[in-house]
């Protein structure tokens, strides 16, 4: 297998009358935690939907684990956590995970670990509908972890979580990467960028920059990534003019 888990060339997506991704080229390295960063509305979710094969694309190629995105065999190897927690509110934590384990074709022994990884131990019998927003998001994440997929696509998994939990989850992401998984994690919070091995900066449907956090800081001479992002936006604006 090549070292790129995801390879995207000339990707264009049109939603309604608007083009939301304008010819994206990027690679996501295997075995790394790659952060997909950008403001709300920059096209992060659309890009992730392309990777999991849920998005109709207008042009370009998306290759995932050396196969065209959306190939049936990839459904066993790619885990996807949508931005809105997609679990059943009228089932308990355990019942939700029983179902997703059965769908993914893995045994129930995987559930206890997934629950402890996302820190929901003790809430197994609680109805998902009565969980807090953060707990619900973690349940949704647990469902994506069950079959230990080769590629995890996580859409804003840490939004609304307290700092301790966020730190723990990023720790989990890196442990999964050490075991060989590739993670593509989106966030609109720049202070999470430093927790990633690689960064992809998206703005208005264009890829602004990519590289390690150090590279981006070095390239712009900025002290922190927020400033680096602004410098890159200005640079791109100057290029347009």
């Amino acid at each position: 297998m090549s070292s790129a888990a995801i390879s995207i060339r000339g990707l264009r997506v049109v939603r309604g009358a608007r083009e939301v991704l304008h010819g994206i080229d990027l690679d996501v390295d295997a075995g790394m935690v790659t952060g997909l960063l950008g403001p709300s509305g920059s096209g992060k979710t659309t890009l992730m939907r392309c990777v999991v094969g849920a998005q109709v694309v207008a042009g370009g190629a998306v290759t995932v684990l050396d196969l065209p995105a959306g190939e049936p065999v990839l459904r066993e190897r790619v885990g996807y956590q949508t931005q809105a927690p997609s679990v059943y509110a009228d089932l308990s934590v355990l019942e939700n995970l029983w179902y997703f384990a059965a769908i993914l074709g893995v045994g129930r022994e995987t559930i206890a670990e997934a629950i402890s990884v996302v820190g929901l131990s003790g809430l197994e019998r609680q109805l998902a509908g009565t969980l807090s927003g953060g707990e619900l998001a973690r349940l949704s994440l647990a469902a994506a972890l069950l079959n230990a997929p080769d590629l995890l696509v996580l859409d804003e998994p840490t939004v609304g979580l307290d700092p301790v939990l966020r730190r723990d989850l990023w720790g989990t992401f890196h442990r999964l990467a050490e075991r060989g998984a590739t993670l593509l994690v989106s966030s609109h919070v720049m202070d999470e960028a430093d927790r990633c091995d690689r960064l992809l900066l998206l703005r208005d449907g264009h890829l602004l920059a990519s590289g390690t956090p150090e590279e981006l800081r070095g390239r712009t001479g900025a002290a922190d990534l927020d400033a680096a992002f602004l410098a890159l936006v200005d640079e791109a604006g100057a290029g347009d003019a």
Partner: protein
Amino acid sequence: MRRTGATALRVLRQLRHDPRTVGLLLAVPCVLQVLVHELFDDRPRVFQSLGVPLLGLFPFVAMFIVTSITMLRERVSGTLERLLTTPLARFDLLAGYGLAFAVVAAAQATLVSLLSFGLLGLESGHSAASVVAMAIANAVLGMSLGLFASAFARTEFQAVQFMPAFVLPQILLCGLLVPREEMAGWLQAISAVLPLTYAYDALARLASDAPLGARFWFDVLVVVGVTVLALVLGAGTLRRRTP
């Protein structure tokens, strides 16, 4: 097969967490049947002619509504999008729903049968078990039509309106209220293309003590055929890739 079973179990578990819905599903048809019985208290022949068809049509209406709402919720909540990125086949999902609602329909029809045949003195020419079996077939028909209809609803308000839009005309024209032969020609023509007409005809034949005949089996064939057709069309509306 495993995934079909898991889906059916999941749908039943969701229902179990909603005892009020289960109570309504089981109690409402019984109450309605008692109402019809009391309404025609001094005209027992009317109850005898309405009782069996009603028993077989309740599950159709109930499952149509329940399925269109549940499926819409799957679409809106994002669980459908998630399921379609997993190895779950669309057939597993549809068959799982069908299986779960067939179980509910069996419970519903059995309860109304016990009440109607046991306490209300309803009689049918053919066995109560065959009436229950037909009721289950109608429930699965209602489920598959509800599933198909849910693709055209964006909100739960719209989905609820599909009941009067899809179901009421079929009940009006199926022959239950006015025999089809007495309808105007154009109404008969419409009636002939509505699946509930055949479901009703089969139930009416089960109620009478005449032999079932070939027409009964043709009715059953139409009910099963339309169910399969609606499921195939419904599966077509479950798109893995959306704009």
